[in-house]
């Protein structure tokens, strides 16, 4: 066996923070052969991104490699100077970042940006660089590559920006490509095309790739070998089939269990280890709490300027029911959820809530409506949905003071604490500010705020999209339990079909503002009718060994 392309031996990285030195990487060893694809999976804070930055030697000033060795092509680059690193970066190893839009220079045409990379490493004339940039855009299969050369990043979609990033990364034919969450934030169908492109490009050019992701399915589908990281350590390393078929380490087992699959249920995600939420008393099935139609949306239309975000949408929701709303970005699902929450006014159409036409009252005045407290919203980005200057207590108390007539009394405190208990948020965290809470805790505060006024309809806008899978599992279980205990109806918006299937009895598929399919969740997943639904389902990466085999990976 020849020497590996990249080898990391007993790497330690620590960051100097105001609370002293924090060890982000605590002794990891990895190696990668030329042309191999290695997946690094783990949750936020596991150190997977820091590993890649350490390899590229792009750690910020607070971060320091304290111990260990990084060898690239037999050369020790652990303490290499800028002079040695500069020609390596971009030419021998390159990186693709998570947010392609943020990684591109917004005021420079993408063609020139690709040319910049080429000219940094090779003596090329402007024309030659432009011709090479065009060839690269063709290689990443952008539509109309010639026209895109002069386009600015804002004129391109997220998927196209990521293709441009890939073109830049492969421009100088590097031996190693590091892709750090390359498809996070992209739609599932775009994700598939971008990942297929990456896999094909690296295979054709014999490049090695490190794919860093939180998505087990993605890693399983595209990597030959996967390393699982937890708190700065590699806890398990194996081929995908072995890793997901028979995970050895308890953390891998938990991670695999928590990832939604084709046939997982809310209960199976959290497993038996879940003790955080006190067991609920046996409850009647949701069907028993049903009592007529809660929400009826008829011919709803919303236009923004010249574009129609929601185009003639009609559906209904029974009391106690959970309805899933699936669609990709631009499908109008977020607009629709805001229309139903009466945060924005519709262009035309009606919204009947509990028999009353709430669409007639302008959104501006809806805070005075008696129905305001009955319709509440849980947001996607829990960090962004909490006022940074409000403590958790203030955030949960706000709707109670506005809508339920609570003063600054002991009764308010009692109710806020009760809500915190309901969502499993420890009471001693109530005085904390959002930035002092973890993602899961922030999610709990957001949910507590939404249920504080005992609503009847909860609109959940991608409530778990920004969470780690293990946290997602716990939050889904919490939502499912709350729904039964509080007699809530859900309008559950998500791009994740597996989550929708577990959480919702009925599903609506939206595409460009229109309903393309509607029906019981089980039926939609087993036998999708619309071509778009089938495309969505096929794009989901799977890591179950049997399924992976079936699709030929």
């Amino acid at each position: 066996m020849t020497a590996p392309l990249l080898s990391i031996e007993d790497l330690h990285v620590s960051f100097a923070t105001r609370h002293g030195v924090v060890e982000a990487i605590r002794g990891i060893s990895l190696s990668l052969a030329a042309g191999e694809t290695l997946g690094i999976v783990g949750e936020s804070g596991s150190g997977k991104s820091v590993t890649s930055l350490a390899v590229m030697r792009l750690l910020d000033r607070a971060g320091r490699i304290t111990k260990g060795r990084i060898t690239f092509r037999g050369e020790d680059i652990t303490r290499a100077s800028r002079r040695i690193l500069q020609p390596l970066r971009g030419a021998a190893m390159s990186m693709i970042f998570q947010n392609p839009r943020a990684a591109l220079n917004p005021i420079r045409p993408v063609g020139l940006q690709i040319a910049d990379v080429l000219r940094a490493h090779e003596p090329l004339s402007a024309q030659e660089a432009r011709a090479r940039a065009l060839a690269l855009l063709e290689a990443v299969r952008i539509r109309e590559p010639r026209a895109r050369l002069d386009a600015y990043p804002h004129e391109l979609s997220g998927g196209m920006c990521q293709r441009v990033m890939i073109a830049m990364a492969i421009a100088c034919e590097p031996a190693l490509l590091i892709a750090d969450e390359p498809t996070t934030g992209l739609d599932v169908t775009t994700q598939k095309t971008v990942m297929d492109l990456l896999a094909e490009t690296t295979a054709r050019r014999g490049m090695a790739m490190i794919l860093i992701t939180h998505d087990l399915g993605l890693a399983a589908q595209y990597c030959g070998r996967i390393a699982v990281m937890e708190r700065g350590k590699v806890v398990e390393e194996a081929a995908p089939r072995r890793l997901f078929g028979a995970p050895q380490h308890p953390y891998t087992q938990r991670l695999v269990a928590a990832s939604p699959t084709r046939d997982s249920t809310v209960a199976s995600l959290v497993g038996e280890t879940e003790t955080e939420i006190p067991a609920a008393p046996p409850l009647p099935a949701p069907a028993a709490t049903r009592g007529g139609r809660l929400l009826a949306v008829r011919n709803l239309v919303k236009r923004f300027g010249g574009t129609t975000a929601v185009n003639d949408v009609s559906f209904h929701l029974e009391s106690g029911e959970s309805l899933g709303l699936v669609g990709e970005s631009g499908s109008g699902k977020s607009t629709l959820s805001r229309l139903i929450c009466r945060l924005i006014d519709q262009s035309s159409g009606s919204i009947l809530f509990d028999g009353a036409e709430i669409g007639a009252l302008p959104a501006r005045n809806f805070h005075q409506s008696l129905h305001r407290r009955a319709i509440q919203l849980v947001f996607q980005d829990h960090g962004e949905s909490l006022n940074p200057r409000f403590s958790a207590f203030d955030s949960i108390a706000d709707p109670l003071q506005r809508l339920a007539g609570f003063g600054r009394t002991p009764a308010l405190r009692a109710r806020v604490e009760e809500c915190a208990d309901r969502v499993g948020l420890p009471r001693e965290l109530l005085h904390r500010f959002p930035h002092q809470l973890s993602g899961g805790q922030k999610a709990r505060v957001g949910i507590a705020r939404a249920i504080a006024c005992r609503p009847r309809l909860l609109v959940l806008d991608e409530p778990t999209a920004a969470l780690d899978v293990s946290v997602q599992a716990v939050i889904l279980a919490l939502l499912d339990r709350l729904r039964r205990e509080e007699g809530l109806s859900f309008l559950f918006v998500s791009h994740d079909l597996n989550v929708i299937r577990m959480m919702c009895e009925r599903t609506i598929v939206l595409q460009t503002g229109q309903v393309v399919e509607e029906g019981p969740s089980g039926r939609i997943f087993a036998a999708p009718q619309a071509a778009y639904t089938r495309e969505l389902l096929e794009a989901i990466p799977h890591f179950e060994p049997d399924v992976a085999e079936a699709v030929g990976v």
Partner: protein
Amino acid sequence: MSATLRHAGYVLRGNPVTLVAGFGASLLIVLAIFGPSLVPHDPVASNVPNALLPPSARYWFGTDQLGRDVFSRVIAATRLDLLIAASAVSLSFAAGATIGAFCGYVGGQLDRWVGRLVDVLMAFPLFVLAMAMVAAFGNQVENIVIATAVINLPFYIRFARAEVNVRRNIGWVEAARASGNSHAQVVLRFLLPNILPAMAVQISLNLGWAILNAAGLSFLGLGVRPPTPEWGILVAEGARFITTGKWWLVTFPGLALMLAVLCFNLLGDGLRDILDPRMRT
């Protein structure tokens, strides 16, 4: 509260410039409150036989043409100068931040009209505008305050507008609406407190500028009238004697003015770090 103090302590330890500026600003405030009762001589009582004495152990900063102690006058002037600056800045902050925040939140026609109005106001040479206002309304302290406030207004409106505009569609604004807050409540209870840290920098910089402005008006004879001790007047009066070598008449009030402006300017950045809760961990 104790968390805020601990955090302030942390910021100041890591940032000695802010600490010095903060110390200077506190000293100015103490002098403004207690100065007139601490000074060694009566700042307005003339004592002609002792006129134009150079600095000495008895008269630290020397005496002026009427034999008044310059040290006492410089200290006594602190109260008036700070009062004018603080009132002017509070006025323009309160009005400007509110107007700007509503414009940034509502957008549309209101935003466009207020924006143009602010542009018109900024097209005037601001100091000349302040002079004209004081000349027209009479040079009482209130008018100096109002004039200084008006010429600062456009900066607050623009600043608040921009800061609110980037936050108008953020999750917690929508959450506040869903929690039953009206648009006005969203602006006043949610958005304004959130732009406060960024505005603190502006306020601090502005305080220095407002002191200069008030002193400038007085220097030109459009502000406070003699014999009231005020830094601008002290410099204006002293300027007549500088050709005859009586340097202490302008130097000390000028230094006081400069140090006051410098303190508030340096304080700005430190204040932002202290007031922003996200900086706390």
